[in-house]
């Protein structure tokens, strides 16, 4: 037991990994931290500002509004996509060529690049040449996403639902396929109604994939950028300006490196915090279900 060789040079073995992680995560992140505490005026003119940028970002009412819109957006699309995804998964065919065909059709929106999705919807909703825009106008509905913020919101949400519900549906579908046939047989013998089968067999077995689906969709929707930028450009006014777009305007449009660095860090921390809270809550709930530790 005691013939271990003590040699601190062994730490050098960790070095390659450390270098890799440094380049992939630590250095870029530290650059941002560096900018967030300085005011850079030119190559040789920089001043240390401390937490000033953080204060000003947190007190910026436009950004606060963007934050509230962002939360609202994420919750809305979750509230639509999760039930819709489960619903679609439930009615998808279970076997045969129909199953494969439906699976491919459903996955199609997932294969389209973000800004292409934005362009598709931008054209789709135009009143002069877009199928939906034109159609709605012909029906006598005053629909215009560049003027009416309600229309812009609804279209943004519709676009996200169209693009990402397939992901939720596919996750749920795989979860449903993994339920052994015996459960359904037993339920028929027990005379369970369709609703009871869903409530007591399917939904409990879907919990795990739903946790993944909700986490993925939340993080994703919180960072949404390209599609909306192409579709509405954040307008009309700032009614559909979300966090990522505010950040891009600040960092690239105005070259405000200090404030946008501080903003980035806060943004990152918010996503980290929300994901952590969500994850811990779910894990905690599962523990409560199983108070005896499953020994």
């Amino acid at each position: 037991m005691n013939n271990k060789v003590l040699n601190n040079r062994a730490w050098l073995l960790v070095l390659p990994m450390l270098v890799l992680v440094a380049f992939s995560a630590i250095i870029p992140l530290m650059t941002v931290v560096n900018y967030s505490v300085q005011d850079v005026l030119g190559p040789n003119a920089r001043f240390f500002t401390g937490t000033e940028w953080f204060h000003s970002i947190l007190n910026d009412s436009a950004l606060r509004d963007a934050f509230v819109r962002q939360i609202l957006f994420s919750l809305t699309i979750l509230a639509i996509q999760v039930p819709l995804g489960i619903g679609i998964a439930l009615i998808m065919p279970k076997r045969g060529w129909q199953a494969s065909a439906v699976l491919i059709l459903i996955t199609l929106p997932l294969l389209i690049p973000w800004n292409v999705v934005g362009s598709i919807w931008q054209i789709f909703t135009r009143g002069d040449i877009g199928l939906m825009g034109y159609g709605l106008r012909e029906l006598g509905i005053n629909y215009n996403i560049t003027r009416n913020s309600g229309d812009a919101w609804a279209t943004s949400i519709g676009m996200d639902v169209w693009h990402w519900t397939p992901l939720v549906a596919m996750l749920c579908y795989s979860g449903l396929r993994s339920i052994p046939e015996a459960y359904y047989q037993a339920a028929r013998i027990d005379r369970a109604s369709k609703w009871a089968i869903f409530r007591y067999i399917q939904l409990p077995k879907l919990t795990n994939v739903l946790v993944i689906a909700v986490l993925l969709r939340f993080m994703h929707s919180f960072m949404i950028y390209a599609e909306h930028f192409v579709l509405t450009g954040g307008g009309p006014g700032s009614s559909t300006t979300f966090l990522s777009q505010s950040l891009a305007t600040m960092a690239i449009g105005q070259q405000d490196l200090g404030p946008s660095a501080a903003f980035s860090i806060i943004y990152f921390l918010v996503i980290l915090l929300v994901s952590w809270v969500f994850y811990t809550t779910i894990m905690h709930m599962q523990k409560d279900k199983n108070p005896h530790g499953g020994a």
Partner: protein
Amino acid sequence: MAEITLKGLAHSYSKTPSSHSDYAIRQMDHVWHQGGAYALLGPSGCGKSTLLNIISGLLEPSEGDVLFDGHRVNELPPEERNIAQVFQFPVIYDTMTVYDNLAFPLRNMNTPEYKVDPKVREIADILDLTPLLSRKAKTPTADEKQKVSMGRGLVRVDVSAILFDEPLTVIEPQLKWKLRRKLKEIHERFNITMIYVTHDQLEASTFADKIAVMYDGQVVQFGTPRELFEKPAHTFVGYFIGSPGMNFLSVSHQAGKVMFGELPLPVNEAVSRSVAAAGSSNIKLGIRPEFITVSNSPEPNSVPIEVVNLQDLGTYSLLSFTLNGQLFKARLPEGHAPVGDAAHAVFSDQHIALYVDEYLVEIGHE
């Protein structure tokens, strides 16, 4: 409560069955009487579970009828047949408590709570689940889970029958015995028809009053455990029931003698006549290991054998020997005199059974 009749029943999983081998269940007629405790015994893949699923309605037979009390129920789904089935692996609703699991089938039938409660507690009491009632059904061990599964089958009093599909597979041995006793108890108490699928003859004979032995998609014999042992109607039953199974000798009738290969067998007149009258090339004589006596010196009607080995199994010894190159087993009682390498065996005449084309043919003993 019902009498279950299978009329001309056959099932094939293929859409266009052409030969015997396409059928999971070959055409059969069978009656399960109300209140009986039955076992369906057979090796894996003989069609036991298929038959069970046809009775419960999970599967629709491709030919023939299933009758409950004379009414055709072929098209009725399980939920309308009022039947309970317990599966090989436990199925529990794990977000519910054990109590709610047991109450589930009753509540699905809109039974008022004041009737649900005593019934659930009664079944929980029988199955020793009372201390677990308020727990989430996720927690119990495998056997507790299976007990919950069984409980859901037993909780409905008015069922036509309860079907068990190898329900004790996941249960540990000591508990198996206990649960089998419980089932028997429940059967006596409620007088419900029970059909119990298993591949274990011991399990079948301790549970059932009558056993249906299935082989290759057919019920080859239906009888009490004693009948199966004493008068196997098919060579498979002889081989499958008993430990070890029956010995078989392929014989022919030549020049007034019963020949086992080149060896004339010293059998009595009645057996010899029956073999001669069989009129088939597939004739077998069966003899249980219990009815072979072995001695060191020649006896009347004995044949010379070569001993392979002798296994001491406590209350009896198992002798393996060869006769004419074929391996046989004989069961020797405790305290039997030691047997040398070359010995002599006598096949007890009145215990020899004759099988023509694998089925039992009565020997006209006079």
